[in-house]
Structure formats: structure tokens, C-alpha cells
């Protein structure tokens, strides 16, 4: 049995499989299907300083080999999380990571500061690239200055592992990655969703309530693998890869491209037990290829 353990800037993981924010709830929603403690890391729903109702319905539309969503960061706010959610998840023996979002650096920092006080949350993933909120969100993630400003503010307030999630809706994702690295990020995760739109031709209106949404699923996987490869070559902090991973084969593509860990997102909707199937599939593949550790393939792409 190959050693699946990996490490993201000091964050020890029993295997490289994590769940993408917004696709796995708080983990507990999937407890009937998988043993949560067998997952390398669980990144829970996007959390903001203040409660958000999110966007109106419809928030989702299926696309060719994928889907668009425009949930818009619906959540009850960080204080509700600390008081009501944290107690339910704090004893789950794996890396419980909170995805943090906001509309200005101060909000991001304050939200992060309150999560910093939670002993059982070893890391946060900073969402500086949510494509589905009008003000803020996206704006920060698509410029080097904007991205750096948020990361600097949060770095001040947050002492544990800081992962920054990057948007692919940019001219150069490596420039953004380098900017957040310089601003103090411990790791980057990519890709967030690709901005898209689907039209109801009978109603002559967009299907989604805010017209556009973020595309995810197998359709975006080639873009995600390309971004991970480009960023992993450019930065010297760990990269977490995600985007359309449906099986172990897909996950291994990301690992070879340079990801130290991967996140499974949309696939959780198709198979609620997919996380462990992917972890086991990676293990089998490593065994069949004579690899003693997953570390033997991370970034080992010849290109």
C-alpha cells in the first residue's frame, strides 16, 4: 500500500483528496455515504463576515459535461458558523478547512481572524475570485494588486495555513499566483469556476437569475490542468488542483502537473461517495506503478 500522505505548507494530510468549497456542505451532509475521516481534507461552504442570502433561484443550469452555478455565497455569517456549525464538525478527525469570502479586505481579515480562534480549523481557503457576487469577490481575484491587498490583510489577521483560491478568468493566472505568494499565501488552490452563461431561447432570457454563473465539471478540466501546470512551475508554494476531477485518473493528471493535493467538487453531486473512490483509485494506481508514495508523482510531468 503506497503512502498517500501529503503536505500543504505544513498542513499534514492523510491523502491528497479534499472537497471543494460549496460542493460538500459542511461534510456532515455526506456522512451517510463516506467516512469523513478518510478524506484528506474537507473545505466547507464559503463563509463571510456577515450573513448573505445569496442570489435568487434559478442558481444552477446543466451544461455539456458540466454545470453553471450562481449561488452567490449564501451563508449565515461567520459568527453563526462559530456558534452553530463549528461544534458539529470540530471533532471530525481530518483537516476541516473553512472557505472565506468577502467584499473588502477588512471583511476578509475580520472573518479570518474569528476563524483563527477555532482550534480545530487548521487552515482557511481564501476565495478571492467568486464569479457570482456583484460587488467584491471576482474583482479582487483578477488583478495582482487586488489579490495581494486581500491576502496581505488576511495574512495579518490569520496565523495558520492560508490557501488562496485563484480564478481562471484572467489573462495570466501565474501573475496572480505570484502576487498572492508575495503577499504571504502559504498555498494556492485552482481553478475556481469559469464564467459562463446559458440562454433559455423560448423566454429569451438567461436561465440563471443573475445571467451568468461559474462553470465546473469535466468540461473545464483541460483548462484547470493547464493552469495548475503553469502555476506550479512559477511559484514555490504548494498548489492544490481542482476542476472537473471525476476519478483517480483525472486526479493523477493534476498531481503530475504539480498539485500537492486535489479538490473534488462537482463530482460530489454525481456520486456522493466519489471522494474515497478517488483516494483508493490513486492508491491502487501507485501500487500498480511501483510508487511507494504519492510524492513520487507530484510535479513529475515531463514537459
Amino acid at each position: 500500500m503506497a503512502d498517500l500522505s501529503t503536505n500543504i505548507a505544513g498542513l499534514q494530510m492523510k491523502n491528497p483528496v479534499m472537497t471543494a468549497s460549496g460542493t460538500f456542505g459542511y461534510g456532515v451532509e455526506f456522512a451517510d455515504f463516506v467516512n469523513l475521516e478518510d478524506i484528506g481534507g474537507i473545505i466547507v461552504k464559503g463563509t463571510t463576515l456577515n450573513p448573505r442570502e445569496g442570489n435568487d433561484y434559478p442558481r444552477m443550469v446543466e451544461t455539456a459535461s458540466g454545470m453553471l452555478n450562481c449561488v452567490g455565497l449564501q451563508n449565515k455569517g461567520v459568527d453563526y458558523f462559530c456558534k452553530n456549525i463549528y461544534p458539529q464538525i470540530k471533532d471530525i478527525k481530518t483537516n476541516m478547512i473553512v472557505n472565506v469570502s468577502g467584499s473588502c479586505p477588512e471583511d476578509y481579515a475580520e472573518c479570518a481572524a474569528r476563524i483563527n480562534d477555532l482550534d480545530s480549523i487548521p487552515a482557511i481557503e481564501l476565495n478571492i475570485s467568486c464569479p457570482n457576487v456583484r460587488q467584491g469577490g471576482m474583482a479582487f481575484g483578477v488583478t495582482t494588486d487586488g489579490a495581494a491587498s486581500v491576502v496581505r490583510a488576511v495574512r495579518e489577521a490569520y496565523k495558520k495555513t492560508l490557501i488562496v483560491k485563484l480564478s481562471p478568468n484572467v489573462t495570466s493566472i501565474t501573475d496572480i499566483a505570484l502576487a498572492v505568494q508575495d503577499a504571504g499565501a502559504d498555498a494556492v488552490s485552482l481553478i475556481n469556476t469559469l464564467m459562463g452563461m446559458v440562454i433559455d431561447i423560448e423566454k429569451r432570457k438567461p436561465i440563471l437569475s443573475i445571467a451568468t454563473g461559474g462553470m465546473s465539471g469535466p468540461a473545464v478540466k483541460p483548462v484547470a490542468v493547464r493552469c495548475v501546470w503553469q502555476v506550479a512551475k512559477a511559484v514555490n508554494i504548494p498548489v492544490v488542483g481542482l476542476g472537473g476531477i471525476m476519478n483517480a485518473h483525472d486526479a493523477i493528471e493534476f498531481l503530475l502537473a504539480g498539485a500537492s493535493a486535489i479538490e473534488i467538487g462537482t463530482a460530489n453531486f454525481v456520486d456522493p461517495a466519489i471522494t474515497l473512490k478517488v483516494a483508493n483509485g490513486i492508491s491502487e494506481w501507485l501500487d500498480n506503478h511501483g510508487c511507494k508514495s504519492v510524492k513520487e508523482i507530484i510535479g513529475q510531468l515531463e514537459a
Partner: protein
Amino acid sequence: MKKFVKDLTVAEVEFPHSRYVLLKLTDSEPLPEMLPGQFVEVKVEGSPKTFLRRPISINYVDKEKNQLWLLIQTVGEGTHKLAELKAGDKLNLVFPLGNGFSPMQKAGEKVLLVGGGVGVAPLLNYGKELKEAGAQPVFLLGARSKADLLEQELFKSIAPVYVTTEDGSEGEKGFVTQHSLLESETFDRISVCGPKPMMVSVARYAKSKGIPCEVSLENMMACGLGACLCCVENTVRGNVCVCKEGPVFPIEELTWEL
């Protein structure tokens, strides 16, 4: 209530209507407990256009035969693929999902179950459960024409069935809310499943009469588990997941204009 993801086996396939297929699924082990009004998420194989699972309400649970029935309207490529399934094929389900209809409130209560289109599906199971529990369910079913009425014999075997058709080819002509039954009889509560305009008009009737009423919503869903927050309905508590906190809601919780 524990949820499962597993392959069930197609036991029987029936075509009660040119645009519907009835899949009777079974399993080698006893099927888990399922509540009336709950639904399943099926994985469609061999359909390039179908990436996500499809939510389908539970039509009937035959405990003797250990069967779970799904009455499916064949609208798109995905549902047409489901209509190609043969006895012996496997179908992967995530189930049971959602809250389901309210259980019997008091023995002997008269419950009006109103359904239209494919919305009649979950009412069959609900009516049976209410009947067995000791309530008095009454079915009021609406359809475009006689030919579009589904599972009539089964409904009749459980409780009285009243029908409206838009063309008058069966029962009373018009919409369910125009049926004389609503004037001639009174009910302790009403449960509705069907097209939104129908549910709204029934909800208005119930509200005007002060009769407790619950409706079963069919918002588009992804996960079915309350994780993705895609299928939300705006309620007095804010946006909530239809897949988890629904699909059944008391009308006073919704923000519909009634």
C-alpha cells in the same frame, strides 16, 4: 434518516402513457424506509446530454414485493434513456431524499390530495400511507384529457378519486380548483403536487378557507443533499434547499402571493 447510494435492479417496466414510463425497482436486500413525498436522485447512463442526476419522486413502495416505483415523464434525452431500461438492468439511486409529506395529524382526518400531471406520482404512496394509518384521504386529480390520467385504478383502490380534465373527456371539465367537490365537502388539510400555477391556485383556495395546506416543489437540483444550495426556494426563513428542507412546504412558509 439514513441515505444510501446504490444500484437497484429494474424488476418491471411499464408504459402507462406515451410520454411516461413506470420503473419498478427492487433489490436483493430489503429496501430502506422511505416516507411518502420523498424522492430519489437517479444516475442516467449513456446520455451525453445528462451530466447531473435526475430527481424523481417516489410513486409507490410495494413492501410485499420489495419494490420502489418511479413514474417518469419522458421529456429530455435523460428521461428517454431511462425509458429504454429493461428488466434486469441496474439503476443507481441516491435515496431517500427530502422531508416528505406530513404524517397523519389525527385519526380519521380528511385529507385532500390534489395532483396534476406527473405531480400525481407521490400522492399514490402518500394516500396509501394515510389510509393505512387511519386517515381518510381523498384524491383530486387534474389532467388535460382522459388519456392523460395516470394510475387511475390504483388511486381508486386506495380512496375516492375525483377528476377534472381540461377538455371534459373525464370527470368535471376545467381545472382542479373548479371541481364541485371543493364546495360540497370540507377537509382537515390539503396536500398538493403539480405544476406551479395549479399549486398556487389550490394554495389560494386553502388560504381563503383557512385549511392547512402543503405543497411539493420541483426546483431544479444538483446534489439533492442540501450541499450545493442550487435548488433554493425563498421562504419566511430566507432561501432554503428544496432538496433537504423540502420538497414539501406548508404554504405559510413560502413567499408566494396568495
